[in-house]
């Protein structure tokens, strides 16, 4: 049985990046709407 | 239909006459093409990369740059001479205006390509002899594609501030499909491979031309009418 590659680090990085982009955009929308 | 073509030809003829009179644009485009081909020659180590592998890419990158030079000056003529309003007031249909500009641009690019191709063959001693006709056909097929879209977009950007830059950015994604097709077919021609292998790409190029020439002809009016 070939041993399962250990690359969980990349997985975590990708999930964090996605969350950052989505939260960042949500924030940007919020900031642009409340700007006086 | 005949009237449409007649008017389109009147516009194209006027553009080419103006181009011939000023000549700066056409000469600079030809010199630019020669320059790019030269730079490509120095840019590679002849021992490492054989000319044949790079040839298709070099040819098409050069032709794409040359085409983009042509696209910008098309509507510049109208702006510099304050004539666009006159064209819109006249009974000239917007489609004829588009076809006229398209014809003029294609002629301009054809001149540059007809100088660029021999230079290319000379610089990279690519065995073009046997495949000249199909090569010219695929050059025409691909050039029509991106010049058709480019002519439409040059009408879009002409009144914005960074017209030249914006045109390149808008056009980039539209250049890639015809470019991929053209490079692939050219590679097969240079590699003496049977054309049957490239049929998929030829169909892609033909479909691209049909779709975008008709789409641009239809959409052009929205770039000029109030």
């Amino acid at each position, binding site marked *: 049985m070939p041993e399962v590659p250990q690359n969980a680090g990349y997985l975590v990085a990708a999930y964090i990046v996605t969350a950052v982009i989505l939260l960042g955009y949500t924030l940007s929308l919020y900031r642009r709407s409340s700007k006086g | 239909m005949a009237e449409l073509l007649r008017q389109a030809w009147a516009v194209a003829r006027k553009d080419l006459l103006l181009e011939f009179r000023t000549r700066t644009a056409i000469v600079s485009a030809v010199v630019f093409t020669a320059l790019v081909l030269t730079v490509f020659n120095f840019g590679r180590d002849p021992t490492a990369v054989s000319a044949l592998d790079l040839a298709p890419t070099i040819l098409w990158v050069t032709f794409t740059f040359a085409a983009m030079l042509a696209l910008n000056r098309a509507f510049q003529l109208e702006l510099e001479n304050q004539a666009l309003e006159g064209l819109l007031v006249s009974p000239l249909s917007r489609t004829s205006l588009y076809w006229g500009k398209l014809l003029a641009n294609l002629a301009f690019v054809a001149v540059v390509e007809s100088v660029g191709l021999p230079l290319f063959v000379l610089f990279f001693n690519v065995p073009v002899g046997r495949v000249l006709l199909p090569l010219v056909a695929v050059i025409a097929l691909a050039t029509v594609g991106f010049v058709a879209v480019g002519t439409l977009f040059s009408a879009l950007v002409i009144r914005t*501030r960074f017209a030249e830059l914006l045109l390149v950015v808008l056009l980039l994604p539209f250049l890639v499909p015809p470019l991929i097709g053209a490079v692939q077919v050219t590679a097969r021609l240079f590699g003496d491979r049977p054309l049957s292998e490239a049929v998929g*790409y030829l169909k892609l190029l033909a479909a691209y031309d049909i779709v975008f020439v008709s789409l641009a002809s239809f959409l052009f009016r929205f770039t000029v009418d109030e």
Partner: protein
Amino acid sequence: MSLLHRGRWITLLGLALLAGVYVRALAFTPVERLQGPAQKIYYLHVPAAIWAETAMVLVGLGSIFYLFLKDRRLDRFAAASAEVGTVFAAIVLTTGPIWGKPIWGTWWTWDARLTSTLLLFFLYIGYLLLRGAVRDPALGARYAAVLGICGMCLVPFIHLSVYLFRTLHPQPIILKPSAPSLPGSMLATWLFSLGVFTLLYVGFVIQRYALSLLWEERNGA
């Protein structure tokens, strides 16, 4: 409840469910034997790519109807869909290399989906730049519509040229990157994620649409 608030609620719900996707994918979905845990990047990468492309098609459709009906609402929708599409494309272009490195050993692969999303990203950037470059709103809307329609028609050609290109360099079937033919629970997670991305798209578009309304009222366009 104003449009803006409704959009915000949908987005918040979407983000909450996204956390659900994270938990389900990370903890409750089996690890794929060949690619290892990195394969789970799939659950975000593919839905984002699907919506990056769908958003462009919707921009095109909105633009067609705008040109015929001259209804400013369609123009606002097209602008919103383009901006949201750009965000999803950004996700694909960041998670793509992060997925590519462990699986292929290089940060960038000319994988069909990655390449087509890159072209889509350039299309979006061009669209947003064009909108920014034209000051007069009516003119900007019309020009953006023309580009939006061309962009929509380009999507199939991007696919054709990219997939045609790829079939010439067949990649090993086992690691078929494009179609996620996944067994049972993996597929469920994937579908769940696709649903969440749909919700996020809707929430973001509503918010961005409301934003355009706000700006128009503010400077009396």
